[in-house]
């Protein structure tokens, strides 16, 4: 007869409440949202009659949603590349054993402590075409660099990328700094003894060793950028011709202002799938690496 130890039972018993809670409030509600997205509930009173994929078909034909997807793609790619590049550059600079390193590190990291709403409002003021940075540029004689910023539909999304990068490149900097510090000095010396230049050292030794850090940063920043709402909502709203609109804002407005619950549920489900497309391969890769060890 196998004896089930008390410890085992206790462990399971302690886990069960969390499992149940997560099961209901996370996975249960995800299922409910997906179910609502397949219904006709687009007015205030619930109407859960089955509509199949009609909401999704309508969504993909909507100009606003197409703009949202395009904006999300541009935002995610440019934001990730900029954060990784700037973060890495700052980390390398800070790693040079300079005086006052902790001061600079704190300065670069502080923006992360502010909420997206504050960042959004502040950058909205900064990039206002009549009263913001444009005035500074004019006074400095750089009037040619003036721009419509977030009022110009062609480049508006990049204004939001600018604000988001300002906020979170300190985060990637901190991660890369830790990663750089984790590379033993012997590797540097060995490479130099082999005759590698600084540039080759970075390209062939250090950056490859930082792949895990880069991957983590991509996952964290990627899922933030796919779901972004408060920064856009506070900074620009939907923007001219939806040039800064994102699915999060669309979902909020259509569900809680327009009473179109099924459409909002559809957008939410698509956002979930987008983020899952990022996280699931990472988890799968992670568990395979674990199992392999």
């Amino acid at each position: 007869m196998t004896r089930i130890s008390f410890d085992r039972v206790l462990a399971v018993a302690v886990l069960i409440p969390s499992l149940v809670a997560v099961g209901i409030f996370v996975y249960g509600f995800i299922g409910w949202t997906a179910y609502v997205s397949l219904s006709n509930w687009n007015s205030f009173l619930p109407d859960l009659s089955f509509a199949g994929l009609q909401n999704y078909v309508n969504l993909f034909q909507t100009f606003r949603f197409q703009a949202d997807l395009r904006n999300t793609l541009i935002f995610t790619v440019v934001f990730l590349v900029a954060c990784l590049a700037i973060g890495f550059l700052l980390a390398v600079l800070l790693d040079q054993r300079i005086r006052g390193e902790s001061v600079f590190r704190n300065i670069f990291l502080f923006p992360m402590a502010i909420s997206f709403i504050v960042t959004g409002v502040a950058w909205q003021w900064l990039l206002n075409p009549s009263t913001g940075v444009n005035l500074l540029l004019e006074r400095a004689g750089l009037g040619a660099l003036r721009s419509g910023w977030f009022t110009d539909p062609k480049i508006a999304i990049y204004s939001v990328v600018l604000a988001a990068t300002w906020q979170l490149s300190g985060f990637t900097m901190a991660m890369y700094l830790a990663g750089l510090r984790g590379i033993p000095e012997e590797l540097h010396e060995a490479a130099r003894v082999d005759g590698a230049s600084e540039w080759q050292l970075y390209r062939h030794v250090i950056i490859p060793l930082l792949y895990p850090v880069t991957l983590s940063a991509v996952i964290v920043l990627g899922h933030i950028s796919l779901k972004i709402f408060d920064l856009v909502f506070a900074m620009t709203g939907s923007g001219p011709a939806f040039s800064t609109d994102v699915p999060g804002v669309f979902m909020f407005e259509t569900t809680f202002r327009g009473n179109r619950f099924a459409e909002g549920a559809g957008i939410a489900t698509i956002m979930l799938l987008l983020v899952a497309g990022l996280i699931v391969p990472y988890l799968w890769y992670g568990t395979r690496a674990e199992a392999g060890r």
Partner: protein
Amino acid sequence: MSGKRHLALLVTATLLALGVAGVTAGAARQLEIFSWWTAGGEADGLNAMFEIFKKRYPGVEIINATVAGGAGTNAKAVLKTRMQGGKPPDSFQVHGGEELTSTWVITGFMEPITSLARAEGWTKVLPKDLLDIVSYKGEMYSVPVNVHRGNVLWYSKKILDQNNLKAPTTWAEFFQVADALKAKGITPLALGDKNKWEAAHLFEDILLSALGADGYRGLWTGKTSWTGSGVKTALENYAKILGYVNADHAAGTWDSATQMLIDGKAAMTIMGDWAAGYFTSKGWKPNVDYGFAPAPGTAGSFVIVTDTFGLPKKAPHRDQALNWLRVAGSKEGQEAFNPLKGSICGRTDCDLNKFDVYLRSSAADFAKNKLVPSEVHGSAAPENFATQFNDIINVFVTQRNVAATQRSLQAACVSAKMCK
């Protein structure tokens, strides 16, 4: 042992009974009013009505449940949660018309107040068009406390006088004035449409000018087609007007646009008469610093934006809720509220000496103009359509595609179940 048990039971039962009695006794003398009137003149006006209520019905505790956030966007979300959860307030602020009807009346959350209205004599002092707006299938569902006007052209007297220009009454005159201003480097029309509804508000007045009051009303009943020539003219006109609007309109809101007049950067703006409240708060006086006129092409029509109060079916203190409605619909209540809020009474018999120059002119128009419901501010169409309308106009402001916009408007009308 059992003696102690009995004592414990007795004490518990007494406490429970007292508690229940306390709760129900307390419950009978409370009134919870839900609104988004959190600041400035709005809050002052609400408090003035509370004072009148306390005088008439003493001993009732008033709970002022407000939710901050412009145009009630947050308040409406909170209200929906409460109503669906079965915990309605005793009465709540709601825009009269479709916002009330399609969200709360058709869905069965509201009690009709027609008999109360007749008993209080409101049916005699409220204009018929306004009564129609707050009624559904012959029953009245809310009492209008105030009326704002949507179709107003505000202009800087200094700029127009300096350039020997007069406020335009038609769009043809507007283009003449605008060309003259543009030649001098002054922005003719200030617009701030970051929140999307401001651009829709401007378009609503252009629609009214192109279709006339009856044609405009037909948009909401299916008589006027969204793909017809009237809407087409309005859109083409709008595209032309947008050429005279400030280039950074996407960065501003209605108050920053109004501020442009005060700063001397723009000459005119078209906005509801809450702009008058903004001017007043910045020290500008009507007919001295700023002038006002009906939006070009809309003289004789009055676009109504009205806040009303109704009776939820499960109002926890129904008697007090009815008393509140009596105060809200009374001459005394409306005369106390409206001068502070910067709007005119829903009633036509308020004492006009309590109101300033602009409001007196507005009340005079209200008494004789054709009254039409505002779509952007919740009276003419359900929220389902209103949010889509804002989105469609947002795209039009940038892309100016008339045919595509008309198709989108028709599709939105169908999807909101307003048209076939």
